[in-house]
């Protein structure tokens, strides 16, 4: 090997080692942070359950409903932390533990929109579900994981929409698949960002300007889950005008 090539190779090896170390440090930070978050979420879970179970006195019906909602949302946060930990694995393999069943995607979308109504209200953004007029086939999905996909995409649309903006969610049957679209008229994705938007921890510059905090894990996780379901995800976006995400999931087929 030529000396220059040898130098180049040595530099590449050093860079690779540095990257591995950085990745490992990042993985440790995520792991420790996740542990701390879970500790807080555990306490919240237990306290809310004590309220629901009547251990801390009787509640009004409205209070009980709110507590149940809080309990479900807390459980969802716990699930997100778990998925964050999965996506964090240095080997870059998301452990595929899925439980596929027949799922009504229209119901799931409805519930997810309802759950995010507080957030959309806080951002002064309206979510509009263009429900199909005919009944659609059920999808073959892990309900909990698929809900994470919906949540990630809807939350992104909310976060990156402008005030008083509208988000349109549509669903249709296309051959062997159900196709879902999430369209916002928000900040859009930069040209540079379009190449990297599904990368783990990547946050587009336009996104960072709008919302300082973000894990950069949402789209990466969503893509992994969709692909593990046998579907696809893609998007169209114009910076400053908005983004539409499209994703598909297979229709449920009964196995004999």
């Amino acid at each position, binding site marked *: 090997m030529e000396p220059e090539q040898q130098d180049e190779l040595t530099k590449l090896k050093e860079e690779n080692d540095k990257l591995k170390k950085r990745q490992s440090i990042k993985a440790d930070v995520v*792991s420790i942070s*996740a*542990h701390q978050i*879970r*500790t807080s*979420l*555990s*306490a919240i*879970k*237990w*306290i809310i*359950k*004590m309220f629901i*179970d009547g251990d801390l006195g009787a509640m009004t019906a409205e209070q009980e409903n709110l507590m149940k909602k809080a309990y479900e949302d807390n459980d969802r946060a*716990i699930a997100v*932390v*778990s998925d964050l*930990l999965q996506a964090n694995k240095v080997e870059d393999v998301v452990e595929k533990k899925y439980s596929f069943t027949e799922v009504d995607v229209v119901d799931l979308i409805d519930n997810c929109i309802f759950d995010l109504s507080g957030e959309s209200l806080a951002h002064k953004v309206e979510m509009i579900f263009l429900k199909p007029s005919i009944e659609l086939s059920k999808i073959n999905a892990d309900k909990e994981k698929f809900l994470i996909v919906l949540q990630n995409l809807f939350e992104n649309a909310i976060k990156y929409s402008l005030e008083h903006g509208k988000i349109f969610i549509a669903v249709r049957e296309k051959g062997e698949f159900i196709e879902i679209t999430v369209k916002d008229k928000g900040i859009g994705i930069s040209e540079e960002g379009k190449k990297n938007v599904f990368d783990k921890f990547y946050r587009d510059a336009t996104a960072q300007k709008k919302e300082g905090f973000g894990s950069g894990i949402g789209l990466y996780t969503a893509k992994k889950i969709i692909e593990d379901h046998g579907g696809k995800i893609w998007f169209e976006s114009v910076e400053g005008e908005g983004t539409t995400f499209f994703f598909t999931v297979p229709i449920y087929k009964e196995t004999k």
Partner: protein
Amino acid sequence: MPKTILIIEDDSFLQGLEATKLKKEGYNILTASNGTEAFKAIDSKDPIDMILLDLLLPDIDGFMILEKIRKTVGHEKTPVIVFSNLSEEKDVDRANKLGASEFMIKSNFTLDEISKKIKDLIG
């Protein structure tokens, strides 16, 4: 005679919630907030019927305590539930190899579910 549970947990709030719940279920409760206190409790002659063990403690980690438990005469078979928010496969494997009876992730269970698991193990 009520059964005795040793709760090894450094977060005082979580320790309090666990202790309150299990006392209500009729158990006698001992607590330790760090490794030193845990070692003291394990070495004492007080009867302990089961141990709820956190893994991240301020002075030593729960794995060392689990090793200690299994090497202590009289506690070789005492049921130990590792009760942690760590959940990597390597942590679960290590706990199992060191003789944990169960590995439960705190945020995945309510206090009722934990109490039921304890009842299943020691009555």
